[in-house]
């Protein structure tokens, strides 16, 4: 019988509490954009900032928490560091809430330099924001290092990256999830270091008045932002590699192709961030072209190896379909669909027409919400539902899946449509020329509410099943 260890259960609790609140902020934003909730209009940008940082943070820690629980099956992460990670995250989140709710801090989730120092919010709120990121960054850095340490206790770095498979060896056996977690952790450390540099440069300006170069700061910021979001996604994919085989009744093993694919991802994902700077014409031209080539190159192995591998695993298998496996499978589809939207946007000549329109939230919400969130929700469902009752209520499972999928894709469709209509992202209200932006926002709010209802149903049901399971243990 499967059980959830306490730490994973705590991460699940954090996710189940924070996500609905942050999603509600998202619904509020869409409603304000539709012209409703006039009293909240002045709160749009603070809420947008809280929603953005909160969502990226919550799903990053959820992915890390799940990765730690997967690792615990093969190696031994430190339980103490795990508790520190949880405590540091909670403290960082409380500081974040204070600076946004009390200080109306609103520099957006990637707080592009020098905006935090030039807004209508008080300086202390910007300082508190940077301090909260310092706490989160330091905590997560320590956490990532500890997970790598745990891996290093059993594998050399070359083995953890699977290089021995390339020489035809299959010993020691490296589960693909471990390979992907290693790749993600290394990328994560690079991202966090870049965030630390950004924060230090901000601190320098606050303390000594030395200003930084806007283009350099933008490069650092997107290196960090892009990499963090992508590696969260990869950790989610590692979960699929780990447990989808249980449901398909077939193995999903590491082989040279898988190794080459994920090593390529590690090399290339660090360059793909350049596609965020296409509209900064001052950036050296060579880097712009490199950005497009790297973006395409990082999509190909993912699509051909991982997605194809998952489809092959399921194709004509004796598949046990329940909420966990449905969500994992749908999550991979969401990753693929959002990925197409992203690859389109990473084409320089398309980016001139799409950059900073709602096309951008369209594609990242697709792979975050219908990709990462589905994968992690699937993993939690897998842990919480003991095998004996796993197939107990296909009808309930189907209702939940339908609400989640239908709500999410209706919500995304409005973003994509608005993006094709050139409606800018991050507009609290739309000008009269773009009044159709408000119409799509209203429809999106309705779909997002449907999604949220589905998620609450899922969360309550998962908690109930988990409690039943722990009682009968």
């Amino acid at each position, binding site marked *: 019988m499967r059980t959830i260890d306490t730490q994973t259960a705590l991460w699940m609790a954090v996710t189940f509490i924070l996500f609905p609140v942050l999603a509600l902020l998202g619904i509020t934003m869409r409603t304000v954009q539709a012209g409703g909730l006039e009293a909240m209009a002045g709160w749009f940008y603070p809420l947008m900032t809280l929603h953005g940082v909160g969502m990226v943070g919550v799903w990053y820690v959820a992915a890390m928490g799940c990765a730690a629980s997967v690792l615990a099956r093969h190696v031994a992460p430190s339980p103490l560091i795990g508790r520190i990670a949880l405590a540091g995250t909670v403290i960082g989140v409380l500081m974040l809430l204070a600076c946004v709710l009390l200080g109306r801090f609103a520099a957006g989730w990637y707080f592009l330099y020098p905006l935090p120092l030039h807004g209508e919010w008080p300086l202390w709120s910007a300082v508190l924001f940077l301090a909260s990121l310092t706490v989160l960054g330091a905590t997560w850095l320590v956490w990532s290092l500890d997970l790598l340490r745990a891996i290093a206790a059993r594998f050399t770095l070359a083995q953890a990256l699977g290089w021995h498979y390339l020489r035809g060896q299959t010993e020691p056996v490296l589960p693909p999830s471990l390979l992907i977690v290693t790749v993600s952790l290394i990328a994560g450390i690079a991202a966090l270091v870049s965030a630390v540099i950004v924060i230090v440069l901000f601190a320098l300006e606050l303390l000594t008045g030395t200003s930084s170069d806007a283009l350099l700061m933008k490069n650092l910021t997107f290196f960090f932002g892009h990499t963090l979001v992508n590696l969260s996604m990869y950790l989610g994919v590692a979960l699929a590699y780990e447990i989808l085989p249980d449901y398909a009744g077939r193995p999903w093993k590491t082989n040279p192709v898988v190794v080459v694919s994920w090593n390529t991802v590690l090399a290339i994902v660090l360059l793909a961030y350049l596609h965020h700077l296409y509209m900064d014409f001052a950036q050296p031209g060579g880097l712009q072209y490199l950005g497009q080539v790297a973006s395409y190159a990082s999509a190909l192995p993912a699509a051909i190896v991982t997605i194809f591998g998952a489809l092959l695993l399921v194709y004509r298998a004796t598949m046990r379909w329940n909420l966990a496996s449905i969500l994992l499978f749908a999550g991979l589809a969401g990753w693929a669909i959002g990925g197409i939207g992203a690859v389109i946007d990473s084409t320089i000549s398309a980016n001139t*027409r799409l950059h900073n329109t709602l096309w951008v939230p369209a594609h990242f919400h697709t792979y975050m919400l219908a990709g990462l969130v589905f994968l992690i929700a699937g993993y939690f469902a897998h842990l919480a539902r003991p095998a004996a009752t796993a197939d107990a209520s296909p009808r309930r499972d189907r209702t939940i899946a339908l609400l989640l999928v239908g709500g999410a894709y209706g919500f995304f469709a409005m973003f994509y449509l608005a993006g094709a209509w050139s409606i800018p992202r991050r507009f609290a209200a739309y000008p009269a020329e773009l009044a159709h932006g408000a119409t799509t926002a209203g429809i999106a709010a309705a779909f997002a509410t449907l999604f949220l209802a589905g998620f609450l149903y899922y969360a309550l049901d998962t908690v109930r099943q988990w409690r039943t399971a722990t009682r009968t243990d």
Partner: protein
Amino acid sequence: MRNAAARIALLLAAVTHGAATADTASGQVLFQQKCAACHTIGEGDRIGPDLHDVGARRERAWLMRFVTDPQAMIAAGDPVAVRLYERYNRIVMPNLALDDTQASALLAHIDEVSRQHPASVAVGVATAPMPAPALRSPQSAILYGFIAATLLIVTVFVWVARSTRDPATVDTHRAYALRRVLFMAGLVCAITVLALTLPRTPYVQAATTPDRVIHVTARQFEFLFSDVAVDSTGDLLNVATSDRITVAADTLVEFRVTALDVNHGFGVYGVDRQLLAQTQAMPGYVNRVRVHFREPGHYPVLCLEYCAAGHHLMRAGITVE
């Protein structure tokens, strides 16, 4: 007053009228430096209310107090101040550290301009909601391509999911052969798209020359067009600027775009209200973007990089005749 001709007239008036108008002239300088980003005098609301005839609307003492310390008045619950604050997106007007002399100079300037110029509604800003444009732009082609790819992905996933109703062992060698084919096809596809799209980037090619060069300076929360470059807030006093500009049809215009405070985005929309071109406006850098204005009509400019509370109100206009 950001209208260039009117500003020059004002400066002239200040010079010729001598001491009596020194007050208004320094008020004009201050207004340009500290207020113009959020207020106009007679050209409509921006982040804050249009200040045309504000001297007639409000008592002098109230105005003096408000201008020198707006935040204290809102905090103290002054009913007029609070109502304004609620109405203008709950954006608090900043305390601009003005002393009483500066405040009266500003109010004198506002009165002066109000007297000389009747209020006019800003041109080129639509007030009634406009209908959605037909999906015929290049953006629509992108959307249709994306929908097609999505349908393909959904079809494959649904097909694989349904195949589990009829389990069987799968020949992995054949599957890997298929993967090889797919990989090669993907590679060819990616290289083709790269070859087709990389030459079509928006970056300025040295070999061609534009018909006209226009400088664009962005700051919270306005875009200013000018014929010469603006490097600092101080330059704004010597350079004629406007947030509206007229261009002859069928001209290739090069915009040289910079920012004075934070990052902004210079987004040019076409007559169909679809994004035509954009570049970031960055402090310390000049980005050059070229736009070929073919058709006559109104081309709105919107800010495409979030720059704080007035971001969605930050705009300019280009009229092509």
